[in-house]
């Protein structure tokens, strides 16, 4: 049983393969993912960063209601998408728009919730991505159910479910991990520990040695990773996905990262944290780190880098165009999707709206 316990406890410090300067760590070289994987990941991060900053700009221009940026967390965002196959499922939390885009989500659809056209802009089945919603940790039991259903059918599907450090305090986090463990469901729980829940620092959220130490309490292996080291994330997360696929059950992975910007544009981070903390973390930027390595190793040249930037620009352009296009919302949609067949009550209520609109129109025509 003790060996069990040791297997479930995370390594003493977060797994890191590339240091902030981009140099491989001691453990590094042995575990480094293949060059093309790293390149793919780098390209994804360039796009993710550009997407984050474009979305924030659109908020300032009043084209987006609100945007919780994952600026600085791009390694986590991209790795989460990259380690999954097509038949797998991703269950993001509300901040993970960049991860959804990295898995192939249309940037405009992905921002639907935040633009205000509708609640969920994309089709969850098309890309096998759970809808983005804000009630924290509530998506985790959904992920377990999806994984269990697939397992009952003997499919090889793995589900990767994301949440933040703050969300780990919710009862749903606890219940989801326990269900996954008891049902031996192929789920990888990926906690992005960005050190804050809006204004609340990790120290007031948990005093555990690490969030990865929560695994053993459910009989789930936990691991902690440097969340700004894409190489380490790809290594640890793909290992977890592989084990889940092989029938070894759920895993818990904590990515240690940092929310470089305010919680959202509406937030004022100066009220609760010091700038030097931010600058210290900015120095560990995931893009800078990986680019340094790729260039030093000659894996990335200027031409390739330019191509990545252009691809990212293209995503930014599509995002801008989509956000600047105003779609006239259809009032009937309010009543169309509540039930498979509208109740008599909804039919009456829709008639009220139609009557109002027809009268305002006829007035307009006068």
């Amino acid at each position, binding site marked *: 049983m003790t060996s069990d316990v040791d297997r479930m406890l995370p390594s003493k410090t977060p797994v890191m393969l590339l240091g902030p300067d981009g140099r491989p760590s001691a453990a590094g070289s042995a575990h480094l993912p293949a060059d093309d994987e790293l390149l793919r990941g780098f390209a994804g991060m360039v796009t993710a960063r550009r997407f984050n900053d474009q979305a924030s700009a659109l908020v300032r221009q009043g084209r987006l209601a609100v945007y919780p940026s994952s600026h600085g967390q791009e390694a986590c965002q991209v790795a989460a998408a990259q380690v999954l196959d097509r038949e797998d499922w991703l269950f993001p939390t509300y901040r993970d728009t960049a991860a959804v885009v990295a898995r192939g989500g249309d940037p405009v659809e992905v921002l639907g919730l935040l633009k205000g056209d*509708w*609640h*969920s802009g994309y*089709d*969850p*089945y098309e890309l096998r991505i*759970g*809808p983005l*919603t804000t*009630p924290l940790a*509530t998506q*985790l*039991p*959904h*992920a*377990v*159910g*999806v*994984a*269990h*259903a*697939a397992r*009952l*059918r003997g499919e090889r599907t793995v589900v990767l479910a994301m949440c933040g450090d703050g969300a780990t305090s919710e*009862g*749903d986090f*606890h*219940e*989801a991990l*326990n*269900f996954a463990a*008891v049902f031996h469901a192929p789920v990888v729980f990926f906690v992005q520990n960005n050190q804050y829940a809006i204004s609340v620092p990790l120290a007031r959220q948990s005093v555990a040695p690490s969030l990865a130490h929560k695994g053993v309490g459910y009989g789930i292996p936990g691991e902690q990773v440097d969340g700004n080291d894409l190489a380490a994330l790809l290594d640890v997360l793909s290992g977890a996905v592989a084990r889940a696929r092989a029938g070894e059950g759920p895993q818990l992975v904590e990515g240690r990262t940092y929310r470089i910007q305010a919680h959202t544009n509406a937030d004022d981070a100066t009220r609760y944290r010091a700038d030097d903390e931010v600058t210290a973390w900015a120095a560990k930027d995931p893009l800078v780190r990986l680019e340094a390595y790729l260039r030093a190793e000659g894996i990335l040249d200027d031409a390739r880098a330019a191509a990545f930037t252009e691809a990212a620009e293209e995503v930014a352009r599509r995002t801008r165009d989509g956000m600047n296009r105003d779609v006239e919302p259809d009032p009937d*949609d309010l009543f*169309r*999707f*509540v*039930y*498979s067949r509208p*109740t*008599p*009550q909804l039919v009456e209520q829709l008639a009220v709206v139609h009557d109002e609109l027809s009268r305002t129109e006829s007035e307009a025509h006068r």
Partner: protein
Amino acid sequence: MTTTAVAHETLSTAQAINRALHDAMTEDPTVLVLGEDVGPLGGVFRVTDGLTAKFGEDRCFDTPLAEAGIAGFAVGLAMNGMRPVIEMQFDAFAYPAFEQVVSHIAKMRNRTRGRVELPLVIRVPYAGGIGGVEHHCDSSEAYYAHTPGLHVVAPSNPSDAYSLLREAIASPDPVVFLEPKKLYWAKGDVALGGDREPGIGTAVVRRQGTDATLIAYGPAVPVAMEAAEEAAREGRSLQVVDLRSIVPFDDATVCAAVESTGRAVVVAEAAGFASVASEIAARVSERCFHSLSAPVRRVTGFDIPYPPPKLEHLQLPSVDRILDAVDDLQWEDA
């Protein structure tokens, strides 16, 4: 659906629900039954008795003791091709799942523009009258009926219990299925089989009457029927409407009934304030205004926590209390 000849059997409500689960699981391999103690034990009310033995642990199984987890897990199962039927052991123990029910189960279809349907059923052993201790006799229908996106049904007899549950399991929409605990042991004739007239969304007139209309659902229906029986002896003819379906609500049947008598009493076990009974009284008062000879009266639970066993008889709508309300319907100006 079309009606075809169906077999009949005499069953208790609990047996009828068990049979509905059994028949649905037989017809559709994606139907799963899960919850606390629903497996080998067969549920604390034996409603799931024998299902694990018959269909195996993958089809009917116990979960960890966590209602939010059960509901959220069921959301995932339903998203991925299954038709989960979850049991909340007692109504008050469904409250931990409230966020999953209100924020996801009720909203998922609308959120995703109909792309993600959640064909799941939440079975809730419901209401009181069984001498249960605190938290074992709540009536929670108002919480669900007020939440757009849920269907809410409450059978009053074994046959409806069977057919409404079959229909709920077949429905693409989430259904909160309220099982009156005190009727679990009540026996009645049950029409078996899957093909039938729709019951969800339809009320039925259980007893014809000309003087006043009693509107009830679930555990209040047998009491209303008794009251009508008693009133008949006293020479007053009461009509009884059994809603069966709280959401959708059958305005047509209810209004026609009330207009035919011009007087109405709403009977429900739940605390009355901001309740389903309030809704019924408000709708009837508004829609039947000109046919009403007297204000619509409500006989409901008082606005107090459900009482301890020794006092629950005072909280439950009784025949006498219903007849008092009927007496109040201003007959003098009749």
